């Protein structure tokens, strides 16, 4: 039972830090606020390593309840922990990235008046994320799910004076709520058909549910399993920003950069991936749901990548890259290669957090300028940021040997081997996506770090709409490398971005690292043939260098270099030549305008209509005041009975009541 107290400590340490900094922050120095929160997360990180050792290496898993939340209708709802290999991996990733982001924040938010509030929020987020990944039941999963959503809302709107930020955070919350709407219905379906919300109970009862159907509309019978899985996946689409619920993620970049790294790249947005992997025993039983997952993922992976090509804001490029990579993970889930999806989740967490924090480092150096058109040549000013960015970019494009190479290659191979409906389309999408990924990544890399500096001597250039208003100072002096609290985390994240893939590719994909945490039907197991051909890391790398993804990635880098370093007139010409496509990309395929007009405008329209006509005209006007008017008309005739004296009325009421009583009692 002593591990249970370790689990509790992991959850509570960041919560305590958050409460101290949040509620008592008023009486605290800044330094104390960051010490208590960093301390809490550091404790959680060390204990997570302990749990990882205990679970992943010694093979001890835990499933137990902490307390009974409620009992109703014969069903118990618990708060409890399930700690298996999947959880242990998530714990280490979340706590490590969170710790790095905490430290980084000291540098990034240095001058911000909301310093303590920010630390309180990110610690609270860490707590919520732990609750999500450690849950052993759907109810607590939903709690963590919504709680990370709220903290995300708070952090996107952290600079609450900025109109774009408070628009973005409301949008993020509402779009996520659309996903949660499906998710909650899925949970209700689980409860009805499985009779429990406890993971272990639910997974053990799948046999009784597989053949069942439900009548949703007309005469068509739906498989219960498909319905439940698709509803749950709608939740994942919201949180993990899959098309068409992806619209909130690019806007979430209005928040400070540290949280873009922590929440909107490394951890929270991967909650949907984690959830589907956790539910693998359910998703395995619905071919239809797996196909839906795969196709949605493929669309996201490819089409969001395109958008990264036309962005000028450095953070937005990384944001679209995140969307595209989340698509990759989702495709893996659809191909039943859950382990590959989760493996990519892990490698992505490190290198994407690194890329975001590096972008943040650039933003600091540029005095909160985010437009890449005003950067360039930063290599010589900030070497650490440069080299770590290079590591992150190489990992992202899947350069052989780097972390992303192993996970992305595994996904592509898995999709290739998959027989799920839609896998051909998905395969083409992820393959093409490799080229696009390399192109936008190195477009950004070259525009920021290479070429001629475009910031010198233009003190009064256009700031760009995303530039942070509070820090609109453009000093003449040259940018310089950021302090160690910023570069330290960059280096600390660069290391796993290189080695983590090689380290874990064999255990996670082929050697059954996840044990029973992930369950795959034998006929769906696309990773098994890959494993049969796996002969060590070097073999994998060599094989990778001869496969199309590698050459596509190299072509992407080459194209980026040619377009943006040697012949910048070419992309310009393409833009002119294909202005229609360019406009489509600029408008992000029109999702935002459609939502704004159709959903936001439509809801307000319906609301206004119901209020003005339903409530005011029909109910109040016709029924209430109408009957009052009618009564008035009649009363005009019998007004002679009205004397205006209260006691007359009271008397009349009593007489009436007595008559009624008498009639009822003595009839």
């Amino acid at each position, binding site marked *: 039972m002593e591990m249970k107290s370790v689990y509790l400590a992991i959850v509570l340490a960041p919560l305590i830090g958050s409460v101290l900094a949040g509620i008592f922050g008023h009486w605290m120095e800044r330094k104390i606020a960051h010490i208590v929160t960093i301390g809490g997360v550091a404790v959680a990180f060390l204990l997570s390593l302990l749990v990882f050792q205990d679970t992943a290496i010694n093979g001890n898993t835990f499933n137990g309840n902490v*307390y*009974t*939340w*409620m*009992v*109703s*209708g*014969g*069903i118990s709802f618990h708060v409890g922990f399930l700690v298996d290999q999947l959880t242990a991996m998530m714990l280490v990733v979340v706590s490590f990235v969170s710790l790095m982001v905490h430290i980084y924040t000291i540098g990034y938010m240095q001058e911000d008046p909301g310093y303590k509030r920010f630390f309180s929020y990110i610690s609270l987020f860490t707590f919520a994320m732990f609750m999500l990944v450690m849950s052993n039941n759907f*109810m607590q999963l*939903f*709690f963590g799910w*919504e*709680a990370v959503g*709220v903290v995300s*809302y*708070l952090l996107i*709107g952290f600079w*609450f*004076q900025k*109109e774009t930020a*408070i628009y973005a955070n*409301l949008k993020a*919350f*509402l779009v996520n*709520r*659309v996903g*949660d*709407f499906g998710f*909650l*219905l899925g*949970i*209700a*379906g689980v*409860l*009805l058909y499985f009779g429990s919300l406890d993971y272990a109970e639910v997974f053990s009862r799948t046999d009784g549910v597989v053949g069942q159907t*439900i009548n*949703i509309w007309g005469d068509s019978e739906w498989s219960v399993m498909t319905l439940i899985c698709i509803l749950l996946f709608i939740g994942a689409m919201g949180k993990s920003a899959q098309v068409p619920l992806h619209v909130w993620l690019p806007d979430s970049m209005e928040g400070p950069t540290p949280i873009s790294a922590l929440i909107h790249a490394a951890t929270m947005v991967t909650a949907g991936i984690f959830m589907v992997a956790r539910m693998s025993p359910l998703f395995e039983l619905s071919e239809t749901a797996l196909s839906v997952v795969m196709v949605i993922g493929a669309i996201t992976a490819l089409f969001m990548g395109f958008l990264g090509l036309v962005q000028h804001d450095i953070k937005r490029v990384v944001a679209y890259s995140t969307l595209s990579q989340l698509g990759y993970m989702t495709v893996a889930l659809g191909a039943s290669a859950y382990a590959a999806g989760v493996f990519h989740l892990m490698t992505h967490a490190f290198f994407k957090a690194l890329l975001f924090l590096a972008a943040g480092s650039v933003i600091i150096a540029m005095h909160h300028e985010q437009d890449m058109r005003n950067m360039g040549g930063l290599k010589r000013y900030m070497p650490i940021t440069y080299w770590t960015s290079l590591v992150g970019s190489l990992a992202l494009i899947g350069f052989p040997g780097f972390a992303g190479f192993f996970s992305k290659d595994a996904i592509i191979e898995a999709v290739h081997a998959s027989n799920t409906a839609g896998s051909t389309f998905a395969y083409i999408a992820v393959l093409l996506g490799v080229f696009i990924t390399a192109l936008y990544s190195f477009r950004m890399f070259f525009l920021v770090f290479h070429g001629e500096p475009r910031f010198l001597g233009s003190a009064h250039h256009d700031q760009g709409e995303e530039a942070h208003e509070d820090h609109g100072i453009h000093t003449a002096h040259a940018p310089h490398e950021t302090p160690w609290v910023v570069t330290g985390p960059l280096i600390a994240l660069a290391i796993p971005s290189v080695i983590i893939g090689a380290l874990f590719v064999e255990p996670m994909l082929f050697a059954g690292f996840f044990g029973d945490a992930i369950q795959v039907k034998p006929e769906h197991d696309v990773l098994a043939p890959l494993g049969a051909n796996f002969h060590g890391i070097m073999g994998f790398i060599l094989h990778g260098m001869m496969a199309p993804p590698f050459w596509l990635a190299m072509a992407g880098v080459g194209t980026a270099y040619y377009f943006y370093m040697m012949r910048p007139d070419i992309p310009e010409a393409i833009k002119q030549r294909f202005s229609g496509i360019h406009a489509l990309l600029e408008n992000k395929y029109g999702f935002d305008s459609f939502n704004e007009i159709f959903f936001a405008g439509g*809801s*307000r329209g*319906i*609301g*206004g209509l*119901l*209020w003005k006509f*339903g*409530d005011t005209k029909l*109910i*109040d006007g016709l*029924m*209430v005041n109408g009957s009052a008017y009618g009564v008035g008309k009649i009363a005009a005739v019998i007004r002679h009975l009205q004397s205006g004296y209260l006691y007359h009325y009271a008397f009349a009421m009593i007489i009436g009541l007595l008559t*009624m*009583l008498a009639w*009822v*009692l003595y*009839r």
Partner: protein
Amino acid sequence: MDSSSNILSLLIWVPIVGGLLTLAVGDRRGAMGRVTALAFAIITLLISLSLWNGFDRSTHLMQFVELIPWIEPFNINYHLGVDGISMPFIVLTSFITVIVVIAGWEVIQDRNSQYMAAFLIMTGLMNGVFAALDAILFYIFWEAMLIPMFIIIGVWGGPKRVYATIKFFLYTFLGSVFMLISLLWLYSESNTFSILAYHDLKIGMTAQMLIFFAFLLAFAVKVPMWPVHTWLPDAHVEAPTGGSVVLAAIMLKMGAYGFLRFSLPIVPDASSELDTFMITLSLIAVVYIGFVALVQQDMKKLIAYSSISHMGFVTLGFFIPFMIFKQSGSMEGAAIGVEGALAQMISHGFISAAMFLSVGVLYDRLHSREIGDYGGVANTMPAFAAFMLFFSMANAGLPGTSGFVGEFMVILGSFRANFWIAFLAASTLILGAAYTLWMYKRVVYGKIGNDGVAGLSDMNKREFLMMAILAAAVLAMGLYPAPVIDVMHASVDHLLQQITISKL
């Protein structure tokens, strides 16, 4: 369980006597009046806590029963008692009274003692409604409770208070009259006014239908259900803050309570026959009113509409079991609907109170309820902004707050009845978040909107205290609802058993 206990009488009469004493002390002796009021409110709360502690959770039978013959020729008794359905609301009422007294402490300048006295007297009467087991006694409390509320809105209300009070009074009174007729009919059939005796009374279908609609008029107006809801926004807008708090937190619950104490057990066959009708009305309340709330410009109106939408979950949860029973032939899993509805009632007591108090805090400073008159309040009132955010999230049903518990349970229950009912009910996840957080955005976030907002001062200690108490309640019930739900089990199970037995 002490059979000679008179704790329920104390809960009725202590606040009423306290109110009269407060009146007697008056405003001439400085703060003496309100100190008296606060003392009696706290004493009432303490008594109600001993009611909670002494309550036996294992039985559905009435507890703390008091039975004294009153008007013997008509067999009318002073008959009190509580079960797991009514008891929590007595505690809630007593709790809210303390909050209301604190809220009105220095805000009500005009006739402060009379204001406090009205609330205390109303508390006693409302406790009476929940405790009464005699139909006439119930009816007296039910009607009498309107008088203090009528006075509170009429004396301390806004500029259009006369229209609002008349609308409020006529609406609720009209409904009640039909209830009285039904009660008299039931007496003529059974020769008793005992509500519990009515539970066992055989009634024909036509009579059941008529009685159901008579009760429906009384209770639907109070809840309020669509389409008899339009008095509520008007009443809230004109009521002083304390009036709004009691109206939303307690009075709306009376209608819902009436369904459980009267409609369902007395006329179960009619209730079962009309379940689709009632569920439809409830869903209209959830969805239609959700859209209407979205476009409100007045904060109090918005919260009033939000209340109607949330109360839709309550009536939905009450009638879901009938549909489940018809489909599966058993009440298995139906309790979660009713218990969820009850949890929603209690939670809404906390959250709506907190939301109205939040508006009150702003109104006291700028004397406007218009969303457009604010903007950027977080800049000048950070502590208030934090509290209001918490309550807004609770209002949007965030897990970990009490607002989640009831909605979650009712949605789980309604999925068992029909997928589309759950679908429509769950739309509140989106709508509730949209109207609440959009209001929050426009009022609290952003740059400082005008000079008024620039000059705002953050909450004082008294305001902080009342917000903190409510926040603690919302959080506690959200993190650990078991104690509240456990109290209800025996009574809800009994009720579900009762309504499966036909009375025809």
